[in-house]
């Protein structure tokens, strides 16, 4: 299945993406993730100011069928959340890399942690490997 995987982003194996904007990063879920979840009907996001460790569950995305955790791809303090998503969770399906962003973080160790994230090619491979397991 061909999913959109922009080259300018970094990805976690748990299917979140990271975009570096100066000293902040923006976080969302990948096109593959939204496609796998199906219609998103509910989103839970953390409070601004909360400190997240890399790999920590920061929120929940729910489809009709199931609830899935979303994990912080890097450590840092939450500086903003996408409030619009709470009322229009379907935006995660329609525009996962744009209007469907989930939160912004001020990273605490971007240089160290960034290496653990995947680039677009490595993430696409990861998705293919995971899909072939099914």
């Amino acid at each position, binding site marked *: 299945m061909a999913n959109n995987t922009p080259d300018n982003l970094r990805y976690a194996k748990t299917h979140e993406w990271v975009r570096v904007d100066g000293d902040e990063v923006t976080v969302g879920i990948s096109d593959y993730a939204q496609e796998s979840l*199906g*219609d998103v009907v509910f989103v839970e996001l953390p409070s601004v100011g909360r400190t997240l460790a890399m790999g920590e569950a920061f929120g929940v995305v729910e*489809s009709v*069928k*199931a609830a899935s955790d979303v994990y912080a791809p890097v450590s840092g303090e939450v500086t903003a959340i996408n409030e619009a998503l709470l009322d229009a969770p379907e935006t995660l399906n329609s525009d996962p890399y744009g209007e469907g962003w989930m939160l912004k973080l001020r990273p605490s160790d971007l240089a160290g942690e960034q290496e653990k994230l995947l680039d677009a090619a490595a993430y696409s491979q990861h998705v293919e490997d995971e899909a072939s397991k099914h």
Partner: protein
Amino acid sequence: MKRTPLYDRHVAMGAKTVEFGGWDMPVQYTGIIEEHHATRNAAGLFDISHMGQINVRGPDALPFLQYIATQDVATIAEGLANYSLLCYPDGGIVDDIFIYHLPGRYLVVVNASNVDKDFAWMQEHRQSFNVEIENISDATAMFALQGPKAEAILDRVTDLDVTALWFHGVVEGFLFGDVPAIIARTGYTGEDGFELFVENASATRVWDSLLEAGKADGLRPVGLGARDSLRFEPKLALYGHEISDQINPYEAGLGWVVKLEKGDFIGREALQRIKVEGVRRKLVGLEMVGRGIARQGYPVASVEGETLGEVTSGMPAPTLGKNLALALVRTDLAKIGTELDVLIRGKPVRAVVVKTPFYQSRYKK
């Protein structure tokens, strides 16, 4: 994992598949919500070949079924079908089943995950009954054609007068001129509709031809995701959720399927006692007041914080547009209007007990 004869078709149509009861089944083709609405507003075609089918025939077929089932099987005349339960001696539920009375046999349809258990249960209790019990699940494909347009679509592809088939009626005939099929006015969506049984060898042809025949009416393939939301709204029980070996029929609101006066059957003594003593917990409908979706297994607590029950199924109900749930709760919390909390990931979220079914079934009777 087992696959139905339609598996390759589902994948080719872009279905996402999931494991269900040991089967690799399509959960959705285009989207659960879209497929749900298509079934309520037009028609949906479901591959439910994972369901089990067991033939019961012989001179003692009726007394045998009377002994293992809670329903009064004598009231199911030839050409009719009805819902029933198999119960354990303690009143817990082995499975919920549908009994179709055909010429010379009863066809018993059971849940995919319970086929082996049910078949063994029947064998174990046949005793001196003169019956032949045959598991034909692996040779049988089963489809559900459901929704307000189902009748018109089916009428187009068979010589049978399906408009004359009653609610819960069942008949043997042909589809597309020469495909032998059992056709019943039954289903699991709360809509008018039919369930069709054909041999595996005819499955692909019937599936493709039905979709073609119903195209102009908006017929579309529907996966297990919408099958679940469609059965949830009219409060049709799902084994492992609203019913199980730990839940008795009276708790699940299925007392109407238990005919204590019909004579002896497995579980009767316990069920009689439960009925007299009353139940300590009951299945209720919940509407979320706070923000969140209740899911199976989430605890339900009084507003004072005492845990008094558990969610059996919950989701954003597509037709109602609300976050709803079914829950087994202590009887004193079961009154409509009662406020309680669902513990969602440990946090109490307010809900209120509401009337069920959430959606009034639209059967053609």
